């Protein structure tokens, strides 16, 4: 048993989750595959969104997968880093916007 919670080799085993619940696992992967097809957004744009979300979710498997996926799609490192900054801006903005709640409470309670 690995002493680490995350093992890069586990990413290759992702498909095995179907083995313990075929119906839900299959539905998930069908949905997942469909989401990343070209649509109103291109598959390329979706990869960059996924890469940004992978960082905000801090999912090492997702970061690994969508960094490789971005490289395969010919996306440059500059584009990838910009996507990560978009994620970071939303994440920090989401923290900061809660400051309004703090201000509201302070204004209500503090005479």
């Amino acid at each position: 048993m690995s002493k680490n919670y995350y093992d890069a080799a586990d990413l290759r085993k992702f498909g095995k989750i179907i083995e313990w619940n075929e119906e839900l696992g299959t539905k998930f992967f069908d949905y997942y595959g469909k989401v990343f097809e070209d649509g109103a957004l291109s598959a390329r744009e979706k990869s960059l969104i996924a890469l940004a979300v992978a960082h905000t979710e801090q999912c090492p498997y997702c970061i690994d997968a969508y960094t490789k996926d971005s490289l395969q799609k010919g996306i440059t490192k500059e584009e990838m880093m910009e996507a990560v900054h978009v994620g970071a801006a939303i994440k920090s903005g989401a923290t900061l916007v809660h400051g309004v709640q703090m201000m509201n409470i302070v204004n209500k309670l503090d005479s």
Partner: protein
Amino acid sequence: MATKSLKARNNDIANTQRQLEILSNGIFANGELPTFATKIKETNQFPLRPKKLEILQINLGYMCNQVCDHCHVDAGPDRKEIMTIETMNQCLEVIKKTGAHTLDLTGGAPEMNPNFRWFVEEASKAGIKDFIVRSNLTIIKANKKYHDLPDFFKKHGVHVVSSLPHYTKGKTDKQRGDGVFDKSIEALKSLNEVGYGMPNSDLKLDLVYNPSGAFLPGNQQALEQDFKKALKADFDINFHNLFAITNLPISRFLDYLIASENYEDYMTALVDAFNPSAVANVMCTNTISVSWDGFLYDCDFNQMLNLKVASKVQHISAYNEELLQNRNIVINQHCFGCTAGAGSSCQGVVA
């Protein structure tokens, strides 16, 4: 970025036996990964057999003005192997009598062979349907004596297939050397000026994309769209098709994979992406590759591993299409590169 070939650096990977040892031992010998033969046996495609010959690929020499990181030929300015006029004449005899519809001249930089123009002139008389010259583009701008190549290609109706790793300077120069991108753009403009690559033009200009590192190429069609959009917007450049080619784990790319500790992961990715339906259409099934010294191979990659055709006929001087049709294609683990995902060949995806 190296400036010399592996051979000139006395790197042990320059030794084809060493490359074959690496491809046969380790993760393949210990059973961690199945061999290519095992995989194609599982899908009843072993032994791999040739179909009708369609493409005659001739390597005019390993000399090149570039030293690209991933070059499977290990070409460079220090490589002196070039095809002699005697071997060219033997090739011409075969071109005239073969049933192949495509003649594919490659290198190194084929244009650097001093008899390149003579050979093109003679070969073009044979009435080949598709006459390809694989140009690295920068050669057109490397020296004044090559500046008229676009006109020369046009005169002989040559189909130009050119490598361009990416539509951005950074990625291209990283793989091919400083300044390569700017020179490539200049060369593409010169080709466009004489009509190559223009919409509805018969002067075919195709680009070749291969990944800049240890990952597989993405969707060829999507990459083509991205290349077309960016090259048009940034430089007003036109081309016809983009061929996405997977990097095969041989020569300089193998050296890179080992040095960067990516070898096992890359081979695993290739094996995981094995596509049985790509096997029937890999290039070795309809191609014969001729080396600078006239020996025959199933493909350009086998040529670089010195894996000659498994036939009594192994040299262009004794070429016999019937005998060659009866051979088994020589395979090894590098063949996973041509069967991964959508498959890969000198003409791009195959499945």
